[in-house]
């Protein structure tokens, strides 16, 4: 009986991981790219984030009402900060190159704010929480990011 009960709980964790978290993998990859500007480093970051997240999931966690997208993006930000300056690898020359150029001209926090609000669709409040800063700070970074966005040409 005890074994069956444990197994059911494990199944719920498994299902949660596959259906609530892995579906956001591409978004996490794009955020990682916005931070690192490197495809290789982004890929490594994504794998680290998902490995860590999977290892920390519990049956209790999956029962909570969590914004899984926000959770993963916050984990990405933390993982990036922990491994800061690991901007290794070759910057993207072909994929999303205009976006990469624009991000490169922005301060890190402005890049992150612009991505979280205007690409990932988080609210300003959730974005500030994700980056661990105040809302007014987030707005200042977002303002810089949007100003640069408006001056960016995405034409080939």
């Amino acid at each position, binding site marked *: 009986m005890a074994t069956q009960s444990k*197994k059911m709980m*494990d*199944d719920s*964790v*498994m*299902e949660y*991981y*596959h259906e609530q978290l*892995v579906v956001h*993998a*591409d978004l996490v*990859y*794009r955020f990682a*790219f*916005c931070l690192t500007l490197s*495809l290789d480093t*982004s*890929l490594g970051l*994504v*794998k680290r984030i*998902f*490995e860590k*997240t*999977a*290892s920390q*999931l519990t049956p209790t966690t999956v029962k909570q009402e969590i914004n899984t997208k926000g959770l993963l993006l916050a984990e990405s930000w933390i993982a990036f900060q922990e491994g800061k300056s690991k901007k290794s690898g070759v910057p993207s020359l072909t*994929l*999303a190159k*205009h*976006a990469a150029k*624009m991000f490169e001209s922005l301060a890190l926090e402005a890049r992150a704010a*612009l991505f979280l*609000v*205007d*690409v990932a669709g988080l609210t*300003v409040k959730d974005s500030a929480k994700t980056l661990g800063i105040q809302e007014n700070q987030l*707005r*200042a970074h*977002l*303002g*810089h990011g*949007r*100003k640069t*966005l*408006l*001056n*960016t040409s*995405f034409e080939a």
Partner: protein
Amino acid sequence: MGQVAGDSTSVGILFSHLGEYLDEELAPEMKAKMDQWLQEAGNQNLLDQFVQKRGQLQIKLQELTLSESVLLELRGFAQDRSVQATQEVVHIEQFGRREGSSQFVRKMVLGVIALGLGLFLVWRFAPRSGPTFKPLEYLGFEALMLEESKEERLNLPTNEINEIRQFFSSNPDLSFAFKVLKDIPDSWEPDGASVIDYEIEKVGVVQYHHKETSEKLFHFSYKGELSDLPKAETGNMRSLVFQTYSSDSLNLIAWQSAPSVTSILVGRRSAPELAEIAVLGSTK
């Protein structure tokens, strides 16, 4: 393009509230301020430009997608111990006989099929690409073989759908993500799953049985395009576009279950009934 007049503070506030202004989520006082700033900014097209640039940024970033192999690796990070143990036990039990007899028999069977059973199921022509792998013939025949054999033919005999999901996500032989059908009618219960190695192509299959009639149902997936299958009658059930094939005893419906992944549902039900199961199993 994004040049606006005004002091830097008000310009910063203006830009940082553009999204909420467009979505009409601002409090009346803030909205009034934004109206004023936008007027002072002297750029009539600022809102349109912002919407356009934001959309362009989103589209450019969509060029970045993870490959199927990376997604498989990510899925593999969540490994249920009981599933792992089951898989190991099954692997050990099957190792001897599978190496010797199963592969040999399968190759022999395929040889026979390739020679003489082209009449099976196909309406018209062979696929445009990958002419050596004929999904309809091979999988139709495979369904018949599975139908007649017992569950020991399956790599992973289990009634647990999560074990099946794990089996595929941790299987290094598959180069694509096998989307297990979910929310199919309760009357269908899984018997287990296999990865069939045709050498030229690897195919995942989940076998189900009907709880009351013991009728079998097979869900195959493989790496390939729906458009490579012979042209056939096309159906559309609640946005699921599928092609229908039939033989004397079986019906098949095929649909594009993911980019570069085709799924085929094989059973003795009518094509609309199979499509209904596919729709229920494919929707989130």
